[in-house]
C-alpha cells in the first residue's frame, strides 16, 4: 500500500515535470521565433507598416486588426511570399496599394515574421510553426 502510494506519487510528479518542460519548450520556441521575426520585420516590413504596426494613412494597412489576422491565418504566409494587389478591407477601411512580393524569404523566415506580427501590436495568435507555414505555402494560389 505504501509502495503503491509512492509509485503513484512518483508517476504524478513525473507527469507534472514532463508537462512543465513541454510547455516551456513551446514557450522557448515561440520566443525564438519572435526574436528572429523582429529582425526580419524591421528589414522587410517596418518601412511601410511601421515600428508599432500602425501602417501609414490609407496607403499601407495597420497590422493591429486582430480580427483580420485571425480570419486570414491560412493566407498570411502566401501574402508575405507573393505580395498582394487589389482592394482589401482592414481596420474598417479599404486599402488598395500593391504590396511587393518577398520571394527571398525562406519558409522558416516567414514563420518567424508571422509569429512576431501575430504576437505583437496587441495580437495574440501564438506560434506559426514552420510546418504549418510550409503547408500553407505549398498551396498558395
Amino acid at each position: 500500500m505504501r509502495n503503491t502510494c509512492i509509485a503513484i506519487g512518483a508517476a504524478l510528479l513525473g507527469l507534472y515535470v514532463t508537462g512543465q518542460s513541454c510547455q516551456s519548450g513551446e514557450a522557448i520556441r515561440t520566443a525564438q521565433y519572435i526574436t528572429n521575426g523582429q529582425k526580419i520585420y524591421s528589414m522587410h516590413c517596418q518601412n511601410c507598416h511601421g515600428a508599432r504596426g500602425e501602417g501609414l494613412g490609407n496607403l499601407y494597412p495597420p497590422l493591429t486588426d486582430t480580427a483580420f489576422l485571425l480570419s486570414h491565418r491560412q493566407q498570411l504566409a502566401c501574402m508575405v511570399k507573393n505580395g498582394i494587389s487589389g482592394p482589401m478591407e482592414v481596420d474598417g477601411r479599404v486599402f488598395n496599394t500593391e504590396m511587393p512580393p518577398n520571394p527571398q524569404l525562406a519558409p522558416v523566415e516567414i514563420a518567424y515574421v508571422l509569429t512576431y506580427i501575430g504576437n505583437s501590436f496587441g495580437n495574440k495568435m501564438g506560434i506559426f510553426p514552420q510546418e504549418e507555414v510550409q503547408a500553407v505555402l505549398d498551396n498558395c494560389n
Partner: protein
Amino acid sequence: MRISLLLIGTVLLATGCNHGGTTKTLPILGERDTVSTLVDGKTVIDTVYKRIPDFELLNQDSVLITNSLFDGRVYIANFFFTHCPSICPTMQRNLLKVYEKYKHDDRLRFLSHSIDFRHDSPSVLKAYAEKLGVTNQHWQFVTGSKADIYGLADHYMVYTKEDSAVPGGYDHSGYFLLVDPERRIRGAYDGTNDDQLQLLFDDLEILLNEYTP
C-alpha cells in the same frame, strides 16, 4: 529700501539676460563665393550663397508650379517615389508628422519631388497624397523631366540615381532640406532617423522665428 534695491537689481539682471540672450541662427549650407564690387571708390566684398535655382514642375493637380509658390515662405523639400519599397514610407511618415503640426501655418510649405518620372504622373501623385493624409495645398507633390528633377536634386545636395540593382529601381538619399525664403538651404536631416526628425522640429522653429519674429 534694501528690498527695492534687490528688486531693481533683479529686473536689471533679467533685462540684461534678455538682451544678451543667445538667439541661435541656422547655418547657410552649400558652396559659397565672393564678389567684389566698387562702392564709392572702395572695394566691398560680399558673400554669395548657394541658392535653389528657378524651377517649373507639374504638381498633383497637373498645375505648373514655380518657386513663386514658396515666395516669402520657409519650405521643406525631399525626393521620393510612390512605389518605393525601401526608405520612402519611413521618410514620408516622418514628414507627415511635421505636416500634421504645421499644415495650417501659412509660413511653411512642403515640396516632395518624385524621381520616378516614368510612373508618377500627377494623377498617381494625387492619389498618393490623399492616401497619405494630405488635405490641403501646403504639401506639393511634383514631377518633371528626368533632367529637371535630377538636376534639382543636385542643387538640394540629394543623391539620386536610376539603378535597376536596387529595390524599386531608383536609388536616392532620404534627406529633408530646410529652405529659407531666400532659397538658401539652412538644414539637412536624415528623414529616416527619429533624432534627426526632432532636430528638424527644433531648427524649423528657429528659422520661422528668424523670418517672422
